[in-house]
């Protein structure tokens, strides 16, 4: 049995529940993997820690992974399970209407400088030919965004639509969500990256790991309620059951079908678009070869 250290992007959230479920059901054991999970504080620092051999594999935002790779962090993305980015503008229904780029210009937006939020916003501006001054952005710490929105200090926040939508609905209000993917932002969502050294010496372990992940997600798709119940207990999630289910279902709607053979694969074109866009907005200085960023070769099928 191989010990695998999995680094997470953040403290336990509902989207980590399927992994917990898989561990519970022995899917990783079946693959000969003894999985050890550790929460993190943002994809960027988890990426560096992965490169520094604190972990073998990490669950992180693919955009953050790409930026890290371009800076020379020795990691590579091995699977991306979201079909498109969940990055969105989110507001409270009744207070705001988010139906067009024009509409968004009129609101005060809370966004976290640095990290995936900043990436999304920059690319959104670039894609829609907006200048620095066209959006009224207030910078807020990741932990302050929800509070800012709820208290009305900002009208809109940027972030993952499924996550913040679930929170708003959890307070008994309706959410207004504008997806950046719909506005032509070619970012990707969450996936798995691996330490290069680990990847080179243990490619089969990565495949086995992804196979177990895939199986776990199949169960999650079949029974989000059960996954949440089990995850809330095991991971001590602070989400209410309903909010957790809402969250998971929102994520599933923009994720690959875990029973599909092409689960986790993004095309070369999608990657090329991501890398060139990141380079355009200055997040990546010297892009280098695409195959330094990702490989689809280790995906199970």
């Amino acid at each position, binding site marked *: 049995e191989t010990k695998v250290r999995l680094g997470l992007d953040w*403290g336990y959230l509902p989207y980590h529940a399927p992994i917990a479920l898989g561990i519970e059901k022995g899917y990783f054991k079946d693959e000969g993997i003894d999985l050890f999970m*550790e*929460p993190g*504080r943002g994809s960027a620092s988890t990426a560096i*820690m992965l490169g*520094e051999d604190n972990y073998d594999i990490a669950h992180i935002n693919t955009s953050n992974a790409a930026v890290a790779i371009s800076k020379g962090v020795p990691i590579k993305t091995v699977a991306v399970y979201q079909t498109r980015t969940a990055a969105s503008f989110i507001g409270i229904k009744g207070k705001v209407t988010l139906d067009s780029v024009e509409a968004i210009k009129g609101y005060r937006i809370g966004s976290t400088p640095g990290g995936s939020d900043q990436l999304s916003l920059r690319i959104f501006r670039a894609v829609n030919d907006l200048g620095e001054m066209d959006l009224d952005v207030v910078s807020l710490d990741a932990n302050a965004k929800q509070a800012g929105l*709820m208290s009305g200090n900002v009208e809109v926040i940027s972030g993952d639509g499924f996550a913040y939508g679930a929170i708003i609905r959890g307070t008994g209000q309706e959410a207004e969500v504008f997806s950046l993917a719909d506005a032509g932002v070619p970012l990707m969502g969450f996936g798995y990256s691996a330490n290069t050294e680990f990847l080179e010496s243990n490619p089969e372990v990565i495949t086995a790991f992804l196979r177990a992940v895939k199986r776990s997600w199949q169960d999650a798709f079949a029974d989000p309620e059960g996954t949440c119940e089990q995850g809330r207990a095991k991971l001590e*999630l*602070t989400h209410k059951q309903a909010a957790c289910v809402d969250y998971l279902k929102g994520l599933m709607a923009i994720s690959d079908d875990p029973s599909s053979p092409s689960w986790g694969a993004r095309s070369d074109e999608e990657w090329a678009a991501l890398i060139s866009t990141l380079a355009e907005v200055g997040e990546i200085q010297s892009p280098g070869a695409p195959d330094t960023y990702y490989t689809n070769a280790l995906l199970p099928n």
Partner: protein
Amino acid sequence: MSAASNTVTATTSGPSSKVIQRRRRRILRNAALPVLSAIVGLIVWEVVVRAFDIPAYLLPAPTEVVEVLFNRFGYLMTNLGYTMFSALLGFALAVLLGVGLGIAIASSPIVDRVVYPWLVISHAVPKVVVAPLLLVWIGFGVKSGVIFVVFFTFFTIVVNTVMGLKSADPDLLHMVRSMGASPMKVLWKIKLPNALPNIFTGIKIAATLAPVGAVIGEFVASNRGLGYVLIQAVGSMSIDLAFAAVFLVSGFGVIVWYLAELIEKRILPWHASQRGQH
């Protein structure tokens, strides 16, 4: 010998019951007022929340917080345990380090000028902000909590210790030196006791900051403890849980403060600050 002892007659005796009674009443009054003040504050808070119908996700009422405190008692206590552990361990290290460095700085002008700037820098760096870097350097877990507590609290102790050690009466130092006291003895018998009131000031501030440091440490780099609970709770807008955690942390801090005050009173009965009516 017989001559002078005549001037001393047996006119001293043990403490009278009046003294003891007065002391007991004073303790009661000292404890009652702060508690009363806290209770009044909580009632005002409850009333305001109810009167203005403030939603729980903005500001939960104290009763709601207490409810969560009960409902998730085990969870909160476990995490409080982690936080207390980091706080106490870190605080102990900070006292050792702080007093040690304070002594070194006060004893040697060279150490003062070479080391002090670095301490000031370490104090002047916004630690929370560079946390992602610290996370990458130190890694995740208990040790980061402890390190955070140490960094958070030791400087106050250093500065107060240095001040206290340097405040010793020069004549007193001269006197004991001419009694043949080694620098170590001068430190131990004169400078340190003389610095105790200042050191205690530093320790009291540090003691109250220790749980804060632990929580912030957990907030930036741990998957357990009240800091982790807080980041999770705030992230899912479970504000009542967040308040329960804050309540526990600050309650812990307040208890530590009053404990330190109590110890201070015991150890420094000779100092002006503990005597006299001001």
